[in-house]
């Protein structure tokens, strides 16, 4: 027992030696203290004077020292919680490098919430600047992808009230949007997977600055439509409803029906949409869309001298008709711009791989002529708390 005891002691000493050597020489390469990094929460990309350069705006979260001696000046709380930095250069990371010289702290991109492209840059083309967001190790895929209706810089510089940092407030807005439907917000992965698909075209929400009574706030309304990687058009909020209905994945959506006898407001939920591409014998392609769902009647106006049993079927038929109408004019808008924002191309590719080889190169001609036959059945299952409304007399 004694003899190998000394060798084990030698061994322990030498292992400690090795470990200490490596640990002491480690220059802690990757270690960056929290107060030496500037946390980038939003990135905006706009066009700049000469064509192949871009104007990058980065919104950096500022930290007030909460504890300790530096307490006094932050009591005011008036100064905002973020600062905006700008740089123009050929590439995005080189822009960050040039920004770095002005800012003492190294930019930290892991906590970036949004990527906003200015309108002109979107129209000029997006693909060339997406590469860094996939390749650079600090970029994450679940970042929100937005298009500004004017300049991305204005979006990032606006001081919103509820959430001090406007990029975070944007991600909050987008999170409420999903109460309506998942397909309203687009993260980088969805956008890129649409870009890769040869036939389908990408889509991204548009954000704009709105003037409130005494505050300015950000609103996400409308969708930008991209053809290949250039923005070609815009969907108004009405047409977006049609887009939402075709894409499915809806949690709950308000429906507003105005007829001559009266006006009704309903909330649709528990909606199942199934979209099946169909290729008839003679080569004509069409898409059958089946929507089943339930609605709750929330508000009625007018309909005097009619009782509930007549109103409900009336509203039901009107609701089905309205959804069909929304889908149609969204489709017509998309077909006008000849950009397949619904991903019908991929649906055909997935369900008919053999025929798809021939369809693929003819898709630009086929898509404008595509028909959608809809089969919508939304029933009102719950008329709300009260049965007959005030001005209805109960007809026997």
């Amino acid at each position, binding site marked *: 027992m004694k003899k190998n005891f000394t*060798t084990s002691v030698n061994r322990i000493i030498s292992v400690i030696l*090795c470990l200490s*050597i490596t640990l002491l020489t480690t220059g802690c390469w990757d270690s960056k203290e929290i107060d030496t990094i500037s946390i980038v929460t939003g990135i905006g990309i706009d066009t700049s004077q000469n064509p192949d350069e871009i104007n990058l705006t980065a919104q950096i979260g500022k930290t007030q020292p909460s504890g300790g001696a530096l307490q006094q000046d932050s009591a005011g709380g008036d100064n905002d919680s973020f600062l905006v930095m700008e740089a123009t250069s050929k590439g995005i990371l080189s822009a960050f490098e040039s920004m770095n010289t002005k800012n003492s702290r190294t930019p930290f991109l892991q906590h970036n919430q949004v990527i906003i492209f200015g309108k002109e840059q979107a129209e000029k083309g997006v693909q060339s600047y997406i590469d860094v967001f996939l390749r650079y190790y600090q970029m994450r895929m679940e970042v929100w992808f937005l298009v500004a209706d004017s300049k991305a810089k204005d979006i990032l510089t606006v001081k919103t009230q509820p959430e001090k940092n406007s990029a975070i407030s944007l991600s909050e807005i987008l999170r409420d949007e999903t109460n309506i439907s998942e397909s309203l917000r687009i993260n980088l992965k969805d956008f890129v997977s649409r870009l890769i698909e040869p036939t389908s075209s990408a889509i991204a929400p548009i954000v704009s600055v709105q003037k409130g009574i005494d505050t300015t706030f950000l609103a996400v309304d409308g969708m930008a439509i991209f053809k290949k990687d250039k923005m070609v058009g815009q969907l108004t909020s009405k047409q977006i409803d049609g887009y939402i209905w075709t894409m499915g994945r809806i949690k709950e959506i308000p429906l507003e029906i105005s007829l001559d006898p009266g006006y009704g407001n309903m909330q649709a939920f528990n909606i199942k949409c199934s979209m099946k591409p169909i290729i008839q014998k003679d080569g004509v392609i069409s898409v059958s869309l089946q929507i089943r769902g339930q609605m709750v009647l929330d508000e009625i106006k007018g309909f005097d001298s009619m009782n509930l049993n007549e109103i409900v079927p009336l509203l039901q038929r009107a609701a089905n008709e309205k959804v069909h109408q929304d889908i149609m004019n969204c489709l017509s808008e998309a077909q006008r711009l000849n950009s397949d924002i619904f991903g019908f191309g991929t649906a055909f590719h997935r369900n008919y791989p053999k025929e798809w080889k021939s369809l693929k190169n003819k898709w630009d001609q086929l898509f404008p002529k595509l028909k959608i036959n809809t089969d919508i059945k939304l029933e009102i299952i719950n008329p709300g708390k009260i049965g007959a409304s005030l001005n209805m007399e109960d007809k026997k």
Partner: protein
Amino acid sequence: MPYVIFAFLVIALIDFLPLIKQKKYKELFCVGAFFITGVVLSILYVSGVVIPSPMVLLGDFLKKVLHLSY
């Protein structure tokens, strides 16, 4: 470079001292052979000499001579 040499010195200290004490020369010879190849290769690598990798060589051999490749 100094780290590499220091590391190999430590390995020699740990492994070869007991072997020499126990006078197992056959083992010392075999382990020494592997140790030397390790030292030579690492010195060459650290000083920047490009060492052809056996896997790439075998891969080319398979592709060109036996045409066995995808």
